[in-house]
């Protein structure tokens, strides 16, 4: 399989003499994967995702997205992926349509493409009726859908998802997961992190468990469950990372 992401010997330390957040990490995510990264709080998941998306500059090791080194900081790399942060990362004073117009322009789309993708995605996310209402009036589930719609406007080859369904009802979670599967079936590689392990079982075909900046297990989900004699991701998670608080 062709790699979508290739990480070799990656280490990262935050400023201020803190312990290493990422320790000599190697990881390959293939094109078309629905890849889940899991771990307890403070394990290094967010740091890893920020490095992969170019938000944190790294100096030790190599991170390549579609064969391009992320550290080079080329604009082109940023057009390969979309990012769905855990926070509602858009302008709450604006409507979904206005947000998409703005972020679409920043994603490199022209006026016509923006118009087309906005109409299409608002329809897919069932937001057409509220397209002109300011987002601050929306429910949590509607905001999650806006957050996702903005990230996929430019039809990226990869989609990084950081807790994309946090705080939403079952209906919205189901709709989002189904949409993500649909995207994946069209070729989008998903890199997903969440504490919703049941949802992860449903969505991910490959997983990596990370703890204290290291990958402690990685494989396809059925293989991992078989290997560790567990019948679910939650059991596997607890058996590998323990039950003690981490934060």
């Amino acid at each position, binding site marked *: 399989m062709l790699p979508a992401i290739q990480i070799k010997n990656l280490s990262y330390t935050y400023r201020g003499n803190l312990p290493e957040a990422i320790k000599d990490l190697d990881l390959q995510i293939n094109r078309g994967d629905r890849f889940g990264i899991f771990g307890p709080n403070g394990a290094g998941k967010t740091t890893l995702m920020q490095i992969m998306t170019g*938000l944190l500059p790294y100096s030790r090791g190599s991170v390549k997205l579609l064969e391009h080194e992320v550290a080079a900081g080329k*604009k082109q790399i940023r057009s390969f992926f979309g990012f769905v942060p855990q926070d509602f990362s*858009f302008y709450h004073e604006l409507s979904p349509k206005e947000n998409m117009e703005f972020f679409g*322009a920043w994603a490199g789309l022209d006026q016509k493409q923006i118009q087309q993708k906005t109409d299409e995605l608002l329809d897919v996310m069932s937001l057409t009726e509220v397209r002109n209402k300011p987002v601050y009036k929306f429910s949590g589930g509607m905001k999650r859908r806006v957050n996702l719609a903005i990230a996929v406007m430019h039809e990226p080859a990869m989609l990084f998802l950081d807790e994309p369904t946090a705080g939403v009802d079952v209906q919205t979670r189901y709709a989002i997961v189904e949409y993500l599967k649909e995207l994946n079936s069209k070729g989008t590689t998903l890199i997903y992190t969440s504490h919703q392990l049941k949802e992860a079982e449903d969505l991910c075909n490959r997983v990596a468990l990370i703890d204290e900046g290291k990958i402690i297990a990685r494989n396809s989900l059925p293989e991992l469950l078989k290997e560790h004699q567990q019948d679910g991701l939650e059991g596997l998670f607890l058996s590998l990372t323990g039950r003690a608080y981490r934060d």
Partner: protein
Amino acid sequence: MFKLLATIKKDFRILFRDKMGLVLMFAMPILLAVVIASVQNSTFELVNKNRIPVIIQNSDPGRVAAELEAALDKAGIFRLQEVAAVQNEEELKNRINTKDALVAIVIPAGYSENVLSKAKSVASEALDGVMQEEKENESVKPGATPPVRIYYHPVLQQSFRKSIDATLQTALQFIQSKYIVKEVYFTIHEEDIPGSLEEQIITNQTPIEEVPLSRGDSPQIPNATQHNIPAWTIFAMFFIVISLGSSIVREKLNGSMVRLRTLPTHFGLAVLSKQVTYIAVTLLQAMVIFAIGIWLFPVIGLPALNLPSHLWSLAGVTFICGWCAAGFAICVGIFANTQEQANGFGAVAVVIMAAIGGLLVPSFVMPPSFRVIMLLSPLHWCLEAFYGLFLEDAGARDILMNIIPLLVITVLLQIIAFWGLKRKNLI
């Protein structure tokens, strides 16, 4: 260009939906300009037109005391309310405490007699050797001078007290001189001085002409409006820190900035868009406040604003002031971690820079130590440039020495903002 326009459009949309921000940026400075100009204008009119109410207690029945009263009245800054001489000073104090008037002048008993005897004494001394025989016969030693007392309420500002003191001194001097002249004339001529000659001797024969300095051909007459409109326009421009600073912090906190950094567009475009948007806002603020000075002020009884004759220079200075204000607000937004920090620090910093920059108190009355600090305030250079245009009818060349430091501060703010963005991994 499309990305920049889309970003500016987004910034304007957010700006116009921030009602409180708009109030702070437009309504508040307009209100300040109207209120402060009105107050300063009233102060000017209080002294020059309305007259200061003064209670006068004349305990002296003599004609000299009456003439002193007349001289005070003629001075033109007092509205005298005479109280009966039988009233004691305690009563006067009570009337001041209850603010019937803020000032009372008490002419003591024996004032007339004292002035007359002093006049005789001075005349005799002046004519010593010339009119020897008469002088010896008529020489009178004056007694101790009873003071003319001024009571004033503590709320009366020092500047008022000084002008009251000065007017009273002039009146006393005038009366004393008049009687000395009369006495000298009488001693020499053994008859009263003719009225016309007395008038010529004791009144000022040299006219005073006030000429406001101007670098151009059309001097502006300084008034409360010409002073206040530029000052509060600058204040309004820098007050965009509340809206712009907190908008940047909001974008940092809600993650919009994080998303922008993952998109294939340089983050500097977001900063450029904010500068363009808010410079436009500052230009709009200036136009609105100038328009109010020109058209609204005369309607509400204030002097109208006269625009400088060098309108292009005015546009240039306004643009640079706006750019500097936007740069300052962006710095505050980048370094603040919360909206409270941005709003609190931003607002206080603007007030402090306004104070040390000479917007609240004229720079020429500041202590020498402040005059150095003053040079660090961008508002000072903005004000100096505006005053050059509005009060001196200066052109761009005349105010170059104000524009250069302002540009230096503006560029420094841009460098600090860039460094802050780098330090916070935003670019």
